């Protein structure tokens, strides 16, 4: 009996710790392992400049992962974010072609509004017309990609001036890149959002739409807002990507899948209702760290998509296994009879 008594508080303490880390535990471990591996592979990696450059490179994906998290945790998908990034970069270039003197803040504001508008359409079509979000956002992706191709004839014409590109390229306050600050700000905002009533509403919606609706949650509105925020996050990522590499018709290619990979890697359950936004962002950092490590090992960048495919399947399989076992074990906890 004594063993049992001591086991219970220990288990409780462990449970508290686990609850704190939440479903993100595997991703934090993975991120830690990757960062250690990077230190061994390339001793210069932790020089401040290089490490900040690493974060700058991860920043657009971190933003997309945060946005994608909001959509996934309430039980939906947003496949249109990569196309929003591409369209954002191309549209910015076209704006500058029309109005060469435009202030960069105005252009950024216009992009954010346009991104939010795309999200609004995604949200309204999904919730209002009942089209599954997978189809809605896939359609939106094709619409935007086709639109960009039609508009530019396959190669964008414009040019992004240096003041617009500063956010994605330059440093502020000495040597800290703008992109790192943007990343930090979005991270803090996302955490605060998820702690607010809206955040809890969103998770509840993803967990069980019916329960949430019965509890008085306006499910459709919550989901639409999630899509709007995801679209705006993608537009902000477009500012960073466009700033970093200039005009490109492939700026956002494949980013929607990188974002989804990052989110599931972060321990967020596809289908919604479980996972933390910090985990999703850690997933984005892990994915970038993994790609960096593969590059240092001399593995071709062309295999990135292969690695990504393996990760997505594995992470979802992992999540599913974890979940089902938890369900099986949970009834035994209140009875207090440890069977192990």
């Amino acid at each position, binding site marked *: 009996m004594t063993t049992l008594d001591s086991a219970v508080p220990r288990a409780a303490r462990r449970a508290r710790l686990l609850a704190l880390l939440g479903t993100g535990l595997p991703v934090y471990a993975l991120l830690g392992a990757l960062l250690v591996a990077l230190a061994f592979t390339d001793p210069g990696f932790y020089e401040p400049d290089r490490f900040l*450059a690493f974060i700058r490179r991860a920043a657009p994906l971190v933003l997309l992962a945060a946005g994608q998290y909001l959509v996934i945790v309430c039980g939906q998908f947003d496949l249109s974010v990569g196309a929003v990034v591409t369209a954002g970069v191309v549209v910015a270039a076209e704006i500058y072609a029309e109005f060469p003197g435009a202030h960069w803040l105005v252009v950024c504001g216009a992009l954010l509004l346009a991104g939010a508008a795309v999200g609004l359409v995604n949200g309204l079509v999904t919730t209002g017309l009942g089209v599954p979000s997978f189809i809605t956002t896939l359609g939106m992706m094709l619409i935007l990609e086709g639109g960009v191709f039609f508009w530019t*004839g*396959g190669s964008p014409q414009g040019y992004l001036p240096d003041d617009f590109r500063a956010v994605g390229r330059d440093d502020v306050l000495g040597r800290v890149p703008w992109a790192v600050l943007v990343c930090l700000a979005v991270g803090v905002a996302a955490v605060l959002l998820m702690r607010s009533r809206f955040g809890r509403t969103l998770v509840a919606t993803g967990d069980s739409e019916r329960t949430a609706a019965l509890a008085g949650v306006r499910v459709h509105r919550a989901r639409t807002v999630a899509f709007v925020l995801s679209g705006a996050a993608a537009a902000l990522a477009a500012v960073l990507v466009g700033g970093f590499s*200039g005009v*490109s018709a492939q700026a956002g290619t494949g980013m929607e899948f990188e974002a989804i990979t990052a989110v599931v890697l972060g321990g967020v359950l596809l289908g919604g209702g479980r996972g933390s936004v910090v985990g999703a962002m850690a997933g984005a950092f892990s994915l970038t760290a993994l790609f960096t490590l593969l590059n240092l090992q001399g593995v071709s960048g062309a*295999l990135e998509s292969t*690695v990504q495919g393996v990760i997505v399947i*594995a992470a979802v399989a992992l999540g599913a296994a*974890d979940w089902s076992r938890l369900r099986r074990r949970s009834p035994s906890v209140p009875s207090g009879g440890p069977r192990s």
Partner: protein
Amino acid sequence: MIRRTGPLLAAALLSAALLTSCTSDTPSDGPSAPAGSASPSQDGGEDAEFFTQAEYEQQLALTRETPEGPEDRPWEQMLRPEMADTSQYAVEGDDVHLCFSNAGVFNPWRQVGLRTMEAEVALHEQITEFTVVDAEGQDDKQISDIQELSNQDCDALIVSPNTTATLTPAIEEACGRLPVIVFDRGVNTDCPVTFIHPIGGYAYGAAAADFLVENVAEGGNILALRISPGVDVLENRWSAAELAFEEAGLTVADVEFTDGDPAVTKSIVTDAIQRHGGIDGVWMDSGATSVAAVEAFEDAGEEVPPITGEDQQDFLQAWDERDLTAVAPTYPTFQWRTPVVAALRVLAGEEVPVEWRLPQPTITQDTLADYLSEDMPPLHYAMCGCEGMPGYPQDWGGE
């Protein structure tokens, strides 16, 4: 217990991923439309391996020769011309209806070129009608375009073929109806009155590679950036460069495909700098993404090594502002003027060369100032031969 399996499994998967990814180094994604000078072609001409020793040697020899014709009008110059009689095409009267079947305007090179051709047409009062049909990069559309144009009352037909083999039969058919002038990319028939093109891909690739051979110490690491595999013009450029590097003892650290995209290029160069701990020279098969490569070195805090580009203004400006060690071989856009000149000569019954080989100048440090123009848009090609034309620079997007 259950929770702990998470990281373990993840670690196992990570190592699996590392293992699988070590087995192959081949790029998996296929090329899309290249943004560089040429349009795609799956056709390697007679030689599927993209390298013909005789052609390679001839091109290198041609770069050293002095072309015939007016020095200040390179689009009228010709190398080793074999003149052919065109009296059978001579027409009476002054009202010329010129027709042009264009492969497309899918990149800035072609946009500058088409603008230049239109300006050339405007120079000649006797051309009363100029019909341009855009095939939008599709072979089937260009085939029907050519059929349609040869049934109209065109006096001569200019064709810039989208691909070589597929368009050959359509051009052969048109040859029977009216004089046909082909430029940029060739066709597998000698029925056109003249085929206009600059020296070629080997000369381009060799010009860029020779510059690196001179400016990079032996054993240096060269990063080669290519648009996409399987395009004959681009394959020629690379095969000439590869040969030059091999002879000079330079190490080709990586050969990567950028798809002509700045974002892709920047991440490839950033990765290469990180992986090799520095790069001593960058060879590019076209200039559209040179500036992105330069930026990658800057953002990595490295000095920009000797680099090759093309005659686009953004690269020339970066070269000048940052005082780069650079060279810019060109695939000159002034070649778009030549077909109009040739058409008028043919219709006047004057001789034209069967193969009109245009010079292919290279911009070096010494000539950079001549081609640099702050007022032109970043994607303008400096070797357009259009500076003295009416409407310059506004019609080309300049100020």
